[in-house]
């Protein structure tokens, strides 16, 4: 079966631009139901189901893709304030020679357990007092295998430990009594020795907030930690690393305890402060250099490396923090309201004196993924969801490989009614970016979530394998692939 046939075989004639392909049994309505991406799952568990598989998933992808995202966004007629506030639900896609199955389960956080019991949002009221950061923990952002357990990661509190088989929640990951319940980002970075770096921000602590830094082992022990004062109570969601430095890009989105302003309030955006870069010496976490960039906002980073007297890092760069201030209704409506997408950009950060620089590429991009075999070194390939400013397409169904060094862009378009999610890279050959791309998409016309595999060097050929679930999952954020 060639790939074009494969696409037609799943009733995706739209995708291949071929109108003669077979149609699914139920005629899809013409208009995509974008709200599917933010529709709550109202059961604790999504029981295992078989997906319909077209094509063949390569052996290198036999294993489990775990993904995390907000699975519950309303209770008793009340909706969460922001998409990021939904309760975390972990989805497991198991790929084996005999097929693909999916099951999902909510992370049983303190918040989820109690609000399930009460049937409504009650956190922070006398009925359900909130003690410490983990009371608010939705564990909804990413997943990482550490010490044989699947960690469901958030950013303002503990990771939650889950059974990788059953997805049952075991409890919070308490690294030490001192580090229990403190902010721990959803984007740990792997060091070449197999350990991980991470950071956390507590903007309400001390005078202008505290930044926490961590180094932990793959078997789940905290090797090193530090906490440093922040220059101002700004925001960072993820960070970057070069061979010798950790790079935290602090957006001028300022938490103000006195005025009751959090990062989700529009008045927190103070572009006059500029964006600050904290460059931390990996060899001595107390050595921090502060550098300035023009005001802007970043969730996610691509490759970063040392370049003589400066650092360079790719990032999905927003001109402001608008994404932090959108309601779920606005998320569903998508682009087209004067809210431009992030653009893949190179940040240039001098280690000596001088202000940094932003060089924007023309590519709207989010959910960047790079070859993990080149941590902290110069690399070319960025796998992204490609975001256009075409208002006729309020959500992006396009994934792309952007080779920043060579300038090439290879893309695949899932079609106009589909939202593409993060696609992970799984290496299979010696070249940077040689391997497979594995990711999910939500078909808002037909109401399916799909799992697709691509040759990472030939995205434009379309998927080599496509698994269609008999269910639509709410959109998630980040995942991890576990071989075997």
């Amino acid at each position, binding site marked *: 079966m060639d790939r074009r046939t494969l696409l037609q075989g799943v009733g995706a004639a739209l995708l291949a631009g071929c109108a003669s392909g077979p149609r699914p049994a139920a005629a899809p309505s013409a208009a995509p139901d974008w709200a599917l991406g933010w529709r709550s799952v109202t059961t604790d568990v999504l029981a295992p189901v078989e997906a319909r598989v077209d094509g063949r998933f390569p052996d290198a992808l036999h294993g489990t893709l775990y993904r995390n995202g907000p699975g519950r966004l309303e209770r008793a007629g009340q909706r969460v304030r922001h998409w990021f506030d939904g309760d975390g639900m972990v989805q497991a896609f198991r790929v084996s020679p005999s097929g693909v199955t999916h099951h999902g389960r909510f992370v049983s956080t303190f918040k989820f357990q109690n609000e399930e019991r009460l049937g409504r949002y009650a956190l*922070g*009221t*006398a009925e*359900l*007092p*909130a*003690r*410490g*950061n983990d009371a608010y923990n939705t564990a909804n952002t990413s997943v990482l295998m550490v010490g044989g357990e699947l960690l469901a990661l958030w950013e303002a509190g503990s990771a939650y430990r889950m059974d990788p088989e059953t997805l049952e929640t075991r409890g919070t990951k308490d690294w030490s009594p*001192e*580090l*229990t*319940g*403190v*902010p721990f980002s959803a984007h740990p970075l792997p060091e070449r020795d197999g350990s991980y770096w991470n950071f956390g921000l*507590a903007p*309400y*602590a*001390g005078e202008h907030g*505290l930044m*926490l830094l961590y180094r932990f082992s793959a078997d789940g022990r905290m090797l090193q930690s530090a*906490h440093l004062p922040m220059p101002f109570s700004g925001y960072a969601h993820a960070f970057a690393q070069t061979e010798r430095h950790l790079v935290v890009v602090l957006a001028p989105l300022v938490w103000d305890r006195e005025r009751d302003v959090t990062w989700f309030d529009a008045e927190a955006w103070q572009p006059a402060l500029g964006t600050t870069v904290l460059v931390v010496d990996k060899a001595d976490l107390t050595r921090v250099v502060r550098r300035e960039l023009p005001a802007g906002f970043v969730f996610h980073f691509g490759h970063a490396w040392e370049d003589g007297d400066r650092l360079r890092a790719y990032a999905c760069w927003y001109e402001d923090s608008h994404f932090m201030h959108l309601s779920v209704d606005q998320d569903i409506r998508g682009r087209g309201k004067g809210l431009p997408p992030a653009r893949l950009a190179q940040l240039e950060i001098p280690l000596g004196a001088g202000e940094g620089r932003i060089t924007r590429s023309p590519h709207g991009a989010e959910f960047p993924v790079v070859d993990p075999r080149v941590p902290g070194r110069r690399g070319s390939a960025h796998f992204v969801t490609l975001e256009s400013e075409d208002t006729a397409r309020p959500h992006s169904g396009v994934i792309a490989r952007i080779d920043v060094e060579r300038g090439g862009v290879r893309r695949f378009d899932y079609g106009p009614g589909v939202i593409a999610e993060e696609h992970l890279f799984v290496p299979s050959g010696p070249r940077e970016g040689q391997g497979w791309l594995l990711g999910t998409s939500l078909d808002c016309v037909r109401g399916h979530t799909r799992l697709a595999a691509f040759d990472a060097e030939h995205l434009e050929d379309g998927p080599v394998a496509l698994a269609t679930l008999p269910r639509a999952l709410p959109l998630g954020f980040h995942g991890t692939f576990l071989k075997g």
Partner: protein
Amino acid sequence: MKLLLAAVLLLAANAHAATLTLDIQGLSKKSGHVLIAVHTNAASFNDKGKPVAVRSVEVTDSKLTVTIPDLAPGDYAVSLFHDANDNNKLDTNIIGIPKEGYGFSNNVGARGKPRFDEAKFTLGADGTTLTLVVF
């Protein structure tokens, strides 16, 4: 004589002073003391002034009752914490989140430290009883 008269007047005033009764619930450990402060203004409430009354009460159960007599009727706010290990401070983690129980009048503070105005209540001339839940 004048002094004596003043003392008598003061006693008379005290006779009209009110009693604040606090029913404190939700103490998670049966150890240490509950340290209670009664404030008349925001400065005192925010640790920048002197409380009008303080109490330290030994904890032997998950609840206890404290009476604070001789307060002039008026507006107050109460703050308390459970110093379970008797080190005379509210222990916090490195980011300043309390590790020991705490509470405020009106049972505000479920999301963190409230403002004086949120915790403010009026002590009537006949006295007032408040139920305080320790978070």
